[in-house]
């Protein structure tokens, strides 16, 4: 579905991605793990067109989207939930959500989807007309994901959805991600909590200073000495393992 081939991305003079190749198949959850500054977010931004690749290629459903404008990429079916959620704090939940559907022509369908999500996430329904800024971090995360889903993406890209959330809300967020996949959305996920990410994803890539050094099924990565040592610190166990 999504294929990156030998992608090089720069921030000014900084060579952030040095030949990254990866792929996401239809219906999969794929995760990128790595230390801070390894280039995980850059991979996502390269895909969604925010920092396009300088060399290499990004293809989505057989189309080359390497140098497509970000808006076009959303239209082609990729929605990006950025790190830190970035909801519009002074707008109501309703308006935030409606905005997610801006690329869609059929307004009746957009309204139907809004109703659907309102029912699906009671957290949102209760505060439908409140300003988004009044929500807790976890609620904002649900809002940000809902906003992204309004574009009816085939591929959802999530950047650190659990960041800054209380343990219970982390589990809640991961439950939502699982449900989305069951409903047919393909997901590319970055997560600081590598153990949690490897538990819900099918495959993973390990990024180190802009290069991929390991890849494989999550079960394999979870048992991998290097991954255990570098990314599966003790603290995460209590949070996730049930």
């Amino acid at each position, binding site marked *: 579905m999504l*294929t990156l*081939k*030998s992608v*090089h991305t720069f921030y000014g003079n900084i060579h952030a991605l*040095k*030949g990254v*190749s*990866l*792929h996401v198949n239809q219906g999969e959850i794929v995760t990128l793990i790595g230390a801070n500054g390894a280039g995980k977010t850059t991979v996502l931004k390269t895909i969604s067109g925010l920092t396009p690749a300088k*060399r*290499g290629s990004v293809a989505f459903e057989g189309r080359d989207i390497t140098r497509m404008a970000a808006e076009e990429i959303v239209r082609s079916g990729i929605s990006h939930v950025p790190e830190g959620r970035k909801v519009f704090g002074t707008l109501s939940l309703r308006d935030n959500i409606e905005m997610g559907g801006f690329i869609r022509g059929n307004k009746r369908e957009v309204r139907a989807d809004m109703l659907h999500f309102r029912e699906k996430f009671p957290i949102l329904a209760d505060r439908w007309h409140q300003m988004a800024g009044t929500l807790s971090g976890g609620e904002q995360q649900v809002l940000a994901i809902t906003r992204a889903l309004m574009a009816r993406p085939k591929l959802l890209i999530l950047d650190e959805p659990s960041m800054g959330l209380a343990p219970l809300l982390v589990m809640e967020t991961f439950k939502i991600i699982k449900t989305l996949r069951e409903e047919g959305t393909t997901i590319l996920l970055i997560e600081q909590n590598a153990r949690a990410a490897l538990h819900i994803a099918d495959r993973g*890539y390990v990024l*180190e200073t802009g*290069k*991929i*050094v*390991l*890849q*494989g099924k999550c079960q*394999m990565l979870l*048992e*991998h*000495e*290097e991954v255990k040592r570098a990314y599966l610190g003790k603290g995460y166990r209590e949070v996730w393992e049930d």
Partner: protein
Amino acid sequence: MAMKIWDQEYECMSRDELTQLQLERLQATLNRVYKNVAFYRKKFDGINFDPEDLVELDDLEKLPFTCSRDLSDAYPYDFFAVPLREVVRVHSSSGTSKPIVVGYTRQDLKHWSQLVARILTAAGVTADDVVQVTLNYGLLTGGLGLHYGAELVGASVLPTSVGRTERQVTIMQDYRSTALAATPSYALVIADRMDTMGVDAKTLTLRYAMLAGEPWTEAMRAEIEDRLYVKATDNYGLSEIMGPGVAGECLHQAGMHLSEDHFIAEVVDPETGNRLEAGEKGELIITTITKEAFPLIRFRTGDLCSLEYTACECGRTLARMSRVLGRTDQVIIVKGINIIPSRVGDLLEEIHGTRPPCQMVVHREGNLDKITVLVEVSEEIFFDKMREQRSLVEAMREKVAGGIGVTPRIVLVESGSINREEETAPGVVDRRKLSQ
């Protein structure tokens, strides 16, 4: 013929998917070897190559070969790409000067079992089979490598190891073995022994034979199938790369399916090193793309073969490797063990400090390979007394046996009497007839 496929997801991949997977795994491997293996860092720096410069699979061609000698020189652990603490198994095989020592991480062993399970499944083995493994259990990779794959398939494994043929036959009869893993010549030794023991192969439960470890021929296959009442399949492996499980035939017997999702195979002209087209015969070059402890980039296997990329009737899409058609170097293979002829001279030299003229003669008695080493007697090693001569011969036999892994017969001959014209390779007379 409905046949099982062990790992449909990978064994039946489309070429596009496979190419992407190979690229991803190759890039990760290059990043790792550059960081962790001094040999590769030096080699890559020497040609000004940074792993990030590998943009597509064809760029692999820009990289230098890794030779058997490089691995020998790294004795014992210099080629390992992970700390010894993460290595959970070590095997070794004979090298040019020193043995080649290979290591496996826990993950490597898991992959190995999976890949052996693939070739066993392709060869007809299922959880209902009783597999008799007559390959060597020990430092060589054959026995243990096959063993864990057979266990993974769920078969009942009989780790009989090699030798004691009469007992092998009895076990085969009494334990009702249904599949035999052996070298082709040993399969024939078993058939011979059945004849002398008066065992009728027709009355046995044996159905499949998975054969590997030495060059063999279609004529040998026909004979083995005929005498043991089995379907015999060829498979390919080498300890430098992993051991058994690199490639194996399915029951269509139409070439060995090579696990390209773990190994990138190229065939090159052994003289020029240039890549050859599909179907052309040349030297097999293998790059491992999932190995952790002992990854190799463009390893020269020394084996001559060709690769075919058309789909097989069985449904597998991976490349098919032809039977090994010969060797590029002087290596001769006896009882599944690779021997470099000059090594024999090296070993003899260690006894007296001088290198006596010698010649290795390989012949087949019945179905058993034998090695005789002719050593010319010079003044240094001439003894009047019969007893001392005998102990010298004894010392030579032990030295050579310890060094090459096969016990030779040592024959002292007169100075200047070795006939070099008969030699099939420098220092070697191979009398075994292996016509294709």
